[in-house]
């Protein structure tokens, strides 16, 4: 009897340990140094069909010159705050209607932001949100799982054409193709509800998005984002969001509606 109790106790202890380390399993795809540490500057891994393997858990890089801010008192990506961070303010190519909407969102203290009401950030903002995402790559389909709000996105590489007259979506409809070692993702069919950044740069349903994913080495990913939306901007806006792998981590759960308490406090 004692031995059974001891076995059960040992199993419970193991279960407890396993649970605590759930998100800390070493990723097999990251090369290691002699000491077993992840070698983030090693050559980017490849898949069996010879493509660069984008798979992994990625966290958008924060602004190297940023200061802690917001409720979280954290440093964020500059593009999470503002997709036009690389432009002078007077060089933002607003159409008048988009500028008016942007001003209105600023004046409302951002309380109408979709995320403030537990709606998704949408694409491309999810590339810059300060929570990780996981890329799962197969030859004909790439899935991206985003920790924020536990949402996903599919990028089809099976040769299908962009959908005509699409139902508007937060994530749009994405098709991809490889240009050398760069994955080029073309997305249309957006709704006009998502914000492009935390400041509230808007877009229309006509937004055409091109993202160029390049895994520079084992530990670093670059996503060049080009927003082409003549209804909102007189010329395309381009920025490059970098990300670094979290080699030994996995995604956590995130359900915004679990304990949302701020809506009654918005002013």
């Amino acid at each position: 009897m004692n031995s059974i109790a001891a076995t059960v106790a040992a199993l419970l202890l193991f279960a407890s340990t396993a649970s605590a380390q759930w998100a800390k399993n070493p990723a097999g795809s990251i090369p290691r140094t002699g000491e077993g540490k992840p070698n983030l500057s090693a050559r980017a891994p490849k898949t069996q069909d010879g493509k660069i393997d984008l798979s992994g858990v990625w966290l958008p890089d924060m602004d190297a010159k940023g200061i802690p801010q917001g409720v979280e008192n954290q440093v964020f990506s500059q593009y999470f705050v503002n997709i036009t961070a690389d432009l002078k303010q007077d060089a933002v190519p607003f159409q008048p209607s988009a500028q008016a909407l942007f001003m209105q969102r600023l004046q409302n203290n951002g309380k109408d932001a979709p995320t403030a009401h537990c709606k998704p950030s949408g694409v491309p903002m999810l590339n810059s949100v300060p929570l990780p995402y996981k890329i799962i790559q197969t030859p004909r389909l790439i899935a991206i799982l985003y920790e924020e709000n536990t949402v996903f996105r599919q990028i089809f590489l099976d040769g299908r054409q962009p959908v005509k007259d699409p139902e508007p979506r937060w994530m749009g409809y994405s098709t991809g193709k490889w240009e050398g070692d760069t994955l080029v993702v073309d997305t249309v069919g957006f709704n006009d509800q998502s914000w492009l950044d935390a400041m509230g740069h808007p877009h229309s349903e006509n937004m055409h998005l091109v993202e160029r994913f390049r895994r520079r080495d084992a530990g670093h990913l670059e996503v060049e984002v080009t927003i082409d939306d003549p209804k909102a901007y007189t010329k395309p806006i381009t920025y490059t969001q970098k990300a670094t792998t979290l080699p030994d981590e996995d995604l956590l759960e995130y359900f915004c509606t679990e304990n949302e308490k701020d809506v009654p406090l918005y002013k």
Partner: protein
Amino acid sequence: MKKKLFACVVLACSLLIAELPALAHHSFSAVFDDKKPIKLTGTVTKLEWQNPHTWFYMDVRDDSGKATNWGMEMGSPNLLIRSGWSRNSMKMGDLVTIEGFRARDGSNNGNAQIVILTNTGQRLFAASSLPQPAESPKR
């Protein structure tokens, strides 16, 4: 305000971003007022380690001993977990001193930017992007 914002967009205005802190769920200024700094000491009565924000509650006593319960909002538990903190980092009954900002609606809610364990001086829930005292092991 409108005129000021318009000027910011039309002309160069590097301060605008500082005026609109970023958000992972909501912007700072949608709920809190940076003109209403608060510093409170009280006893932790409840911790809600849930998304989209960690909230904890503390009884703050006035000079007569009467307790008022305050709600304190922080970042997502996911952000705090990745900075090394856990739901066990704060215990019920902990005496803490917070520095932060009060809700704009005047309710007894605030955003705790700094949380200090009053008895030891240890800082709780500091983000990994902030300097942390080396002598303060995480709980």
